[in-house]
Each structure stands twice: as C-alpha cells, then as structure tokens.
C-alpha cells in the first residue's frame, strides 16, 4: 500500500482560508475541553444532589431520585443527544423554541451537547455518590444524630465528607468518560475534536495523520485528568481507609 505520509499537512493553510489545519485541531481541542468541563460541572453538582437524595429516608424524594437515575442511565447517549437537539426545541413554548432555533448554530449545538452529557453523566455520578454514602457504617449517621445534628447537618459534616473522599477513584473514571463521550456530539454537527479530525480527512485525504493527531490529543487530555485526579485523591484520602495508609 502506497500511502503518502505528510505530517506537514497541519501547517498548510486550511480550506476555509483562515489559519492552518493545525488551528482546526486546536479549535476542536478547545471545544472538547470547554464542552466536557462545563458538562462535568453540571454532572458533579446534579449527581451529588441526586445521589444524596437517593439515600434519604423520605420515600418520595428517594423515589424521584431513583427515577431520574434510571431514565438517564437507560437511554442510549446518542438517543438522548438527539432528543435534546431535535425534539426538545419542539416541545418548548413556541417563542422559546424559536429563539433557540434562530440562535447561532454553535450555541444550539453546544447547549444541547452540554446538557445531554451533563445529565447523562450526572446519573452515573449519582450512583457513585449513593454507593459511597451507603458504604459508610450505619453507625456514622446515628452517631451524628445522637450528638444532636439534624439529618441535613449529619450529611454535611459526617456522611458527605467521607463519602466524597471514598468516591474520588470511581469519579475519575466518569471524568475520563465525559471527554470520550463528548465525541458523540459530532453527530449533531458540533465541531469538537473528533469532528475536526474527520473534516480534516475530507479536505486533505490524510486520514492517518489526522486521526493519530486526534488520538494523541485525547491521550493528552486523559493523562492530564488522571494525574490531576491522583493528586486530588492523595490530598483528600483519609488515613486508615480505602486509598489511605
């Protein structure tokens, strides 16, 4: 097979005339990072809340939380993305829907992707948080209550400080997943890293260089995340417990 390797393709001016193909990659890289980080923020906040609600004694609250988790965990990510992007604007009040549809396409794609990834991942984070809380001995909660703390205070000062420390390792996987799952958003036209890679192939016919570059970019992201999370783990770990010594 005669393949013409040409790594200099990244330095060539792009077909659109603005900047080089390398700039395309940088743009995709930034989009992926921006999308994943904002989605992760949503996932952490919502996931923590829902995870806590799953463990409270109130049957109604824990039921709602359980339903939330099941919905977002059991619908395929791609289907969820299409629901957010194609279906939801139709279900909104007409004015709001129209405003959405008339906005900048990038904004439409980014918002849909962010919500989709954020909520999808929040269901998974919620399950980690729940298992973290439930892994604590039952006496911990009772000890907090017996000392005179209300249930919310007991969560805040006794259960959550321990539970969050315990779930850092599984949360690392979720954090890595959100970057990889963000590639799905190329299907609605969001020009993130994977989409830029494919576009580059279309314009330059250099698939190997393009996808090697995309792969390396994901590796860089994930290695960075892993290193960061290791540090977080080391900082928060409780001596005598999982991950501690």
């Amino acid at each position, binding site marked *: 097979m005669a393949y013409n390797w040409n790594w200099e393709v990244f330095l060539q001016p792009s077909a659109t005339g603005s900047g080089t193909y390398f700039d395309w990659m940088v743009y995709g890289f930034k989009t992926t990072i921006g999308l994943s980080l904002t989605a992760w923020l949503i996932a952490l906040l919502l996931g923590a809340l829902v995870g806590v609600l799953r463990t409270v004694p109130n049957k109604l609250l824990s039921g709602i939380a359980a339903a939330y988790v099941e919905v977002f965990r059991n619908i395929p990510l791609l289907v969820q993305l299409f629901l957010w992007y194609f279906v939801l604007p139709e279900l909104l009040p007409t004015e709001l829907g129209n405003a959405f549809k008339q906005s900048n396409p990038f904004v439409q794609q980014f918002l849909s992707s962010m919500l989709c990834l954020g909520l999808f991942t929040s269901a998974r984070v919620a399950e980690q948080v729940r298992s973290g809380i439930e892994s604590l001995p039952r006496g911990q909660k009772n000890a907090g209550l017996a000392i005179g703390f209300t249930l919310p205070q007991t969560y805040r000062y*006794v259960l959550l400080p321990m539970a969050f420390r315990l779930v850092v390792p599984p949360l690392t996987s979720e954090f890595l997943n959100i970057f990889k799952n963000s590639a799905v958003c190329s299907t609605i036209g969001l020009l993130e890293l994977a989409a830029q890679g494919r576009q580059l192939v279309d314009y330059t016919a250099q698939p190997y260089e393009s996808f090697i570059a995309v792969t390396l970019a994901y590796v860089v992201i994930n290695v960075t995340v892993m290193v960061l999370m290791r540090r977080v783990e080391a900082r928060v770990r409780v001596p005598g*417990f999982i991950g501690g010594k």
Partner: protein
Amino acid sequence: MSHLELDHLVQRYGEHTVVNGVSFRIETGSIACLLGPSGCGKTTLLRCIAGFEPIAGGEIRVEGELFSRPGCSLPPEKRQIGMVFQDYALFPHLTISDNIAFGLKDETPEERKTRVAGLLQTIGLDHQGNKYPHELSGGQQQRVALARALAPRPQLILLDEPFSNLDVDLRERLSVEVRDILKQEGMTAILVTHDQHEAFAMADEIGIMHGGAIQQWDTPYNLYHRPANRFVADFVGQGAFLEGTIIDEHWVEVDTGVLESQKPLACCFDASPACGPGSRVEVLVRPDDVVHDDASPLKAEVLHRAFRGAEFLYTLRLPGGAQLLSLVSSHHNHAIGEQIGIRLEIDDIVCFPVQATLSPP
C-alpha cells in the same frame, strides 16, 4: 420523678413483635443495664430510646417530658441523648479532638477547648488529641467514643454493646473505667450487653430481657441469688437444678437430704400459687453452694473439670444421677472418675416448679 421512664413500650417489625410491653424507670445518676441473649430485643429497645425508631405502643419519657409514643417521636437530635456504639462510629476524617468537640455547637472556642482538654484527660489520652481514630487501639477508640458522647453533657447516655469488639482483659478493665467516668460525670446511663460480667461490673441495676420482655429488674446481687424465674436463674451465672419436694416454707427435701432455707421460699410461692407443701420443685444449686468436704458422707463422681487458675469448676454426678457444679480451690486436684465428698451449703433456697424441659448447666 424518675429520670427515664418506659411505659409498656411495644415495638414491632411487621408481624414480629420485638419489644413486648416493657416498663421500667431509671433514677438520675444511676447506671442500668439491659442484659439478655442475642435477639431478645435489647438493642431495639435502646434504639427506641435514642429515637432512631418510631415505637408501636407505649411511651418513653425523660424527666417527665414525652419523647416517644405511637405516631409521634421527638427526633434523635433533639433528645440530648448521647450514644456509644458497638463499632465506636468515630468520624475517620476528624482528629480525636475534633471528634470529641463535634457535638459542642453552642460553646465558644475557648469553652470547647477546655471541655475537650478535660475529657481527653478523663479518658487518659491527654496530648493525643491530634491523632486520627485509626491510630488508636480499640480500647482507646472506645474511650474517645465515650468522651464524644459525654461532651455535650447529655441527659442520658446509651451504650450499645460497647465492649464486644475488645478482648476479654481489656473489656473487664475498660468496663470499670467507663463506670468510674460515668459516675464522675454524674451521668445516667443505660448499657446493653449479652455479657453478664460486663453487666455486673458496670451496672447498679440490671434488667434481664428475654423474648422482648423484662424478666426481672434488680440489682446484680439479687439477680444471682434471688432470680425471679427459671430463665433468669439459667441465664445469670452457672448452676444446676436438683429435683425435690417442698416440706414447708423453709424446708425442701432433695435426693441428698433435707435443705433448710433461712428465708421463706418466696420465689416459688410467689411465682406459682399452686406450689406449696408436697409440690415437686427444682432447687437452684450454684457452684459456690457445693462445698468440697472430704469428711462428708455424701460422695459424688467427678465427670468433668475446668481449671480456672485459682479454682477448679468440677461437674459432679450424685449417686442418684443428678449433676451439680462445684467451685473448689485448685489445691484440691481430683482426677476425672474420682469420688469426692461434698456438702450442700445453701443459705437461701431458690426453687421453681418442675418443668418438662431441662436445660443443661
């Protein structure tokens, strides 16, 4: 007015009644103990008092104030009841000092510091406040758990099998220490345990629980020497039963002869009105009631012996076939199968109407 008052407390899990009409009172400053085999409902009772479970019937009052009745329960955090747990339940992410200070919410930082320092001294861990729970031994952790429960000066302190995770030596030492600390703080306390040595070492009064009900509420001495029923007699201490016939209020005839009781045979006459002169009864014989005496005409065969250091616990068979336990100084080293002379020296006879089932000693 008593400090804690339980009135016909009932607790059910589904169809299963776990606590069945328990009533008792505890006076301020007293240490009470609920003693019973596993599954007798003692821990459930404690959880009801702490407010972790709503109750199905009856009432719980502290200082006259209603804490629990069916359908209405003061939440645990408003009860000012301290609790010490079987697994200590120390907060692993906090230092010893922070654990103890945890419940001190309304105090100034100065007051907190003083109280924590005082408690650390009380539990013998001064200058160790900066350590984390996992750096302490089991006994030390349990003392920290006690200090944490004492810190907010609760109205009542509950101890749920607090020493069961510790080895025997430590258990005995710590139970005396904990008693001293509780008395020093003037605390009213309830201990739950299945270990009678622990109960005897700590409690002023003990309630024997069985089948969700209190069988007898009494001092440790009376539980041992004046058990109210056959269950209590079996459960507390060791002993054997000899069948006999009542002659009158003070005399019982057994295989080995006639026994005299200094006090009237109250137990039996109280428990069963049908029981009177001529009734067949079982007489409780404690190991310390059976005295080794070579000169005695009554001989028994050694069936089994357990060396306890200072003494032997012999299992003996009387000529008639009945078995007795005897605690004998370990200088008297007799082989299994040997015939030894014994004497029965029972001051107060405890007897119960004959039952069909006999539990082994």
